[in-house]
């Protein structure tokens, strides 16, 4: 407190390292294109006009996992696709987060059968679950903002 009053004239601002790093991470989180089924169309709608996601820093959707930090699993994951999903998750560099968008990614959804993985948290660890079949673009944006809140609450003990 005392330092800041003296430094104010020099044009400097002090802030905690956690807050600075978390702020930087949330404001430019790049999602990876992982649209599988119907939820992908709603994700595309959320990216396009009317529910613009680039207001939140997600202007680009990187197709390459090496350049992305958020994986939005949008759609149903079949048993043939599960190893591919795990491999792509492993290829993403740290820090990385996963949003399970839709009912099929959260718990298997309408499909309780031999072909669909019942919840994508059997394959990758999930941070935020967004419910809906498919969730409205506003619901997806709410999920992303919830993830931003979670990231802002991360402590230096977790990532250092």
């Amino acid at each position, binding site marked *: 407190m005392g330092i800041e009053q003296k430094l104010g004239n020099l044009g400097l601002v002090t802030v905690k390292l956690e807050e600075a790093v978390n702020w930087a991470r949330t404001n430019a989180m790049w999602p990876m294109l992982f649209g599988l089924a119907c939820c992908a169309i709603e994700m595309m709608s959320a990216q396009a006009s009317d529910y613009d996601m680039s207001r939140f820093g997600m202007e680009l959707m990187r197709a390459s996992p090496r350049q992305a930090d958020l994986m939005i699993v949008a759609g149903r994951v079949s*048993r*043939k696709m599960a190893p591919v999903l795990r491999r792509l998750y492993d290829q993403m560099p740290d820090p990385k987060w996963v949003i399970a968008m839709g009912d099929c990614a959260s718990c298997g959804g309408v499909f*309780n*059968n*031999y*072909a669909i993985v*019942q*919840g994508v948290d*059997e394959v*990758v660890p999930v941070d935020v679950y967004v419910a809906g079949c498919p969730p409205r673009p506003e619901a997806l944006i709410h999920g992303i903002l919830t993830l931003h809140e979670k990231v802002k609450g991360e402590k230096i003990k977790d990532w250092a």
Partner: protein
Amino acid sequence: MSDPIQIATQAIEERFGAQSSEFREQVSLIIQPEHIVQACQVLHNEFSFDMLVDQTAVDYWPQETPRFHLVYQLYSYTYHIRLFLRVPLNGNVPSLPTIESIYPNANWHERELWDMFGIHFENHSDLRRILMPHDWEGHPLRKDYPLGYEEVQFTFNYDEIDVRKPYAKK
């Protein structure tokens, strides 16, 4: 039955000993598996049924004879008529010749039938699984294959199912 269908059905009945039936204005012919390729050839060349619309199967387990009914659907662009051919198949791994040489799009239909029902097609160019992973065991759409239903978690059994669920590690 309109005239082109009647002519075609009668010809197939005479030459191959098929039986025809009609349900809700759709004509089906029951043909034995040995005659199916020639019947399709005749229908394609002489009666201008130039498109194979669909090829699917129905499983009648636990009834063993016939166990499957293979349903072919042919369409004619000149007369705008549809014709259904049903082929009864017996046994656990039935086998019959492919019609890929007459209708090329039967390729993927027959691969799907092999994958889902276990019906083998002789002389097929590339018979391997198409929808399930290539090392999957079993044929899912058969009636003796289980649905794979997972028990639903309600509040009263949430914890006991939770310990058995395979969650992923980071």
